[in-house]
């Protein structure tokens, strides 16, 4: 089987599992909605800067939970099966693309819920949408790799966040900084340098994942 074909089959398999276990995705959505509601009832008024930061923190927690299960849900026996039918590169690429789709959907639904409940202080919504898309891309890359690491450890559910949070700090700071531009009026100056930095961080993650996953996956 060619590389692209096996990637496609693996993604299809993950999507099928997701569709058959809709409760998991619904659970994540409910989690997101509850957190947003919690913010709504606990803050009297939300300053725009705070609005942004909280949005990214909500997204961070939601995506850690959403991506964590991508590796944790696979049992040992199933790994043995994958080992015999696909290359490790195909598996990690498939997982990343699948998580990217999941995160994109989740971030867009999250943004809608967030804006509906907490109002919209954005002056450049399209620009913000672009940052959200790049953000979900970065989150999915980083957390996929971390989930692959954590799935090998004992007590993975505890390990996953403590591995992910420190690693995601530069990405989170860049995203908050980039999305702050969306709050202010006037002519939008494109922060090209920060975008380049974020994309190069993602590239580092991607290269690391491709180089190291073959060592990680077999038991």
């Amino acid at each position: 089987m060619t590389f692209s074909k096996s990637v496609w089959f693996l993604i299809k398999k993950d999507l099928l599992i997701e569709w058959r276990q809709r409760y998991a995705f619904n659970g994540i959505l409910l989690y997101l909605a509850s957190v947003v509601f919690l913010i709504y009832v606990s803050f009297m008024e939300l300053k725009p800067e705070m609005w942004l930061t909280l949005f990214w923190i909500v997204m961070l927690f939601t995506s850690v939970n959403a991506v964590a299960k991508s590796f944790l849900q696979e049992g040992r026996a199933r790994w043995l099966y994958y080992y015999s039918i696909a290359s490790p590169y195909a598996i990690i690429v498939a997982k990343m693309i699948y998580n990217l789709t999941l995160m994109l959907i989740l971030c867009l639904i999250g943004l809608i819920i967030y804006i509906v409940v907490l109002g919209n202080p954005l002056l450049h919504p399209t620009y913000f949408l672009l940052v959200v898309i790049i953000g979900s891309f970065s989150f999915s890359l980083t957390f996929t790799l971390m989930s692959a690491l954590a799935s090998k450890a004992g007590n993975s559910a505890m390990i996953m966040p403590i591995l992910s949070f420190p690693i995601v700090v530069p990405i989170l700071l860049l995203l908050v900084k980039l999305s702050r531009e969306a709050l202010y009026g006037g002519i939008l100056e494109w922060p090209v340098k920060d975008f380049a930095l974020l994309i190069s961080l993602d590239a580092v993650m991607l290269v690391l994942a491709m180089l190291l996953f073959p060592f990680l996956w077999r038991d």
Partner: protein
Amino acid sequence: MRKGWWKVLAIALMLFTIIMGMMATVPALPILHETIRNLFYHVPMWFGMTLMLLLGMIFSIKFLRNGRMEDDIIAASFTKVGLLFGCCGISTGMIWAQSTWGVFWNNDPKENAAAVGLLLYFAYFVLRNSMDDLDKRARVSAVANIIFYFTFIPIIFIVPRLTDSLHPGNGGNPGFNAYDLDSNMRKVFYPAVIGWSLLGTWITTIISRSEIINRELQFSLNNSSMNNSSKQLDSKF
């Protein structure tokens, strides 16, 4: 003894650093005053930490290439010493911050980045110790070590540059080079960096050797106890 020349050098450099660090003439500067001597202890900690973590990462790569258990133990020991240097660096930095900036923790981006870096490496040890199977532990922690090193570098070099820092050389503050790392201080600073790094390597060799001996002892104990129990079984039946 001939092989141990660098340990002698380490002792000599450490003595030099401690004595000259206290005795050398330093420029009289406002706010900093005599705390500038912390430069010989605080800054080399970060140099040493980065170097120890780099060496740990290199041994992790070596482990993934050849699968020798010793390389894994050495990699973990280097990382442990790097983390120790980081803790020393952050505590000396906090003491310095208290006397020059007024508080122990100033929400300074460099302080925050260092703290995040330390969290990352503490997580490495939690991950490492969460696995019982020695083979799997070595493999997974080698992979983690490589990933962490390449994310640790952006954390300490990128995060501080996103906002202004109180540290020299950031946010309009002149760098140390500009005014006070004069030739007198350089004479102590560079030997200090080399001395701390050598000391770190020395500690690493001791830790890794004791770990290797421990492991061999355990194996031989297990084997002998198994032999004994089988003998007992033999005598019973």
